[in-house]
């Protein structure tokens, strides 16, 4: 286990920000800590880094206790805060050089690594420009460059796509995925579930300081959305198709909308559906298995929780 917490709790006065968190993250995983703002994600991250003291429970990151061995821990763990700030009057290069010195890197090694990470983040041309002239996306990339400077084993990213335009966000997520290929364990937090679901191996959904759901995205969908495979179908003519499809074994729901038909089934029954459509004498235009979206999982889960209450 790279990151492990047991009964991790943080209270601010009477407010419980994180409540009995049990988290286990394995080496090489990309783990998404997801949930709305104020659900305890950032507090959890700060406790993992030893930047805030837990009220109860234990934390181990790479086997280190953040409260007692913060230096060894922070030497191997990179952290990109949610609103990353730099010294605006200093250049990107100077900002990185300061961090390299704080990490105690020898000058030659620091120089070599700085050139490499700036190149990798596509900032080599602007390295000598003051950071105050940087756009939000460039700052974010400089933040990731700084994280990579210490060649970390674990990277913790707080809301990495916040404030980025969709294109920059996608690009940034791709860079994060690149870290996984190097064997770096990544923990990222986000409230934009649909944006990060593609790159996370596992996700944990936070709600009011508790980890309410955890697992692979597909697993969660299975569990919360009732194990449904959703199949989208476009065919002409649509008349009568709904009734025939409903008769198929395993189909639980059929909906007609402007674009076509939507089926929910317990298995992937696309071959059977295609057969039914052709037997009905209609032309099949498209037949897609829809990926379950985390947003849906999240919304559905809380709907159920509210109903149960």
């Amino acid at each position, binding site marked *: 286990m790279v990151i492990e917490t047991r009964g991790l709790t943080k209270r601010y006065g009477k407010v419980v920000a994180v409540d009995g968190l049990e988290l286990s993250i394995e080496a090489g995983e990309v783990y998404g800590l997801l949930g709305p703002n104020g659900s305890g994600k*950032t*507090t959890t991250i*700060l406790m993992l*880094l030893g*930047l*805030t003291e837990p009220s109860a429970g*234990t934390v181990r990151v790479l086997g280190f*206790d953040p*409260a*007692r*061995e*913060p*230096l*060894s821990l*922070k*030497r191997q*763990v*990179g*952290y990109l*805060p949610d*609103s*990353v*700030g*730099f*010294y*605006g009057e200093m250049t990107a290069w100077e900002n990185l050089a*300061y*961090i390299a*010195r*704080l*990490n*105690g890197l020898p000058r030659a090694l620091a120089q070599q690594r700085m050139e490499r990470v700036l190149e990798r983040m596509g900032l080599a041309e602007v390295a000598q420009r003051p950071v105050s002239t940087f756009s939000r996306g460039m700052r974010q990339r400089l*933040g990731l460059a*700084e994280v990579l400077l210490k060649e970390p084993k674990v990277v913790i990213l707080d809301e990495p796509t916040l404030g980025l335009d969709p294109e920059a966000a996608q690009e940034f997520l791709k860079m994060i995925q690149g870290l996984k290929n190097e064997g770096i364990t990544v923990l990222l937090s986000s409230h934009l579930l649909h944006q990060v679901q593609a790159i996370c191996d596992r996700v944990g959904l936070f709600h009011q300081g508790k980890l309410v759901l955890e697992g692979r995205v597909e697993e969660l969908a299975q569990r919360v959305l009732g194990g449904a495979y959703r199949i989208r179908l476009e065919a002409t003519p649509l008349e009568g198709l709904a009734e025939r499809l409903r008769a198929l074994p395993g189909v639980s729901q059929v909906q007609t909308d402007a674009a076509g038909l939507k089926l929910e089934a317990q298995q992937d029954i696309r071959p059977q559906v295609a057969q039914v459509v052709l037997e009905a004498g209609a032309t099949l235009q498209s037949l897609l298995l829809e990926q379950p979206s985390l947003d849906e999982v999240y919304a559905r889960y809380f709907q159920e929780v509210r109903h149960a209450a």
Partner: protein
Amino acid sequence: MQPSSRSKREGSPWTGLWAVFFKEMTDHLSSTRMRILEVLILLSAVGAVYAGAQTLRQTISEDPFLLLRVFTAAQDPLPSFIAFLSFFLPLAAIALGFDAINGEYNRNTLSRILAQPIYRDALLWGKFLAGLATLALILLALFLLVVGLSLIFLGVPPSSEEVARALLFLLATLAYTGVWLGIALVSSVLFRSAATSALTAIAVWLFFALFWGIISQLLAQAVAPLDPFDPESQLRQAEALLAFSRISPNTLYAEAIQALLNPGVRSLGPVLISQLEGALLGAPLPLGQSFLLAWPQLTGLIALTLLLFALTYVLFQRREVRA
């Protein structure tokens, strides 16, 4: 490993101290506010030396401590060099320290810096020492400037005792500046807004510079009321007044440099006629004795600096990284 409150924190709290120190020092030395301070202090030095030299040229009597007179002599409307220093240096210290910690919050750099393998100790010490070193640098430059200018204006080389006294004066001034840097640091931890922090530190400075004298007078009158039939009550009130006014770092500094720069000063409190029996009035004290006279004030200033730094330290260690 089991967590226990007894197990020690790993590593040295000084890790990264020099990185912070040099970065802060570079920031200070290249900042605009430093430019402004330099101009102000340069003007005051030239003005003070010029005024001092003008006064001194008119005196024809022999004086073994000519250099020290340059520091203390005033000519209307210009105040003396030490008066300038005690006025400007607190402002310079506040200017360098008021946004030390809250500036990191406001630029969102604090969590990024603290995520590096350093302790908070290093950040705070680095900032404090960088501020102090910058002020020491200004002070030394200013001092050499004044000594050099006075050599040109007066044409008399200083004696070794004068130089020793002047260096001790420099040390006292640095301790006094440290107090104000400490006050600025405390307010930079206490207040999230840089403007509030600067105003608070300046308010403290104004309070001690202008109001504390009046307040200590009132307090002395309350504690030791004057009895017209008891001459001793007068002494008691004078002593109470002195005790209260010594709470202010300005008083401590003024007394310390009075003893150091004026070898004729034999006591910093009220002196009774009986104590003057056998004394050669106006005869200079040796350096050691003057230093001994200023010692309580000097230690007071240094202790106050350390106390303020310790307060900053405690406040900052407990502060949440997140706003």
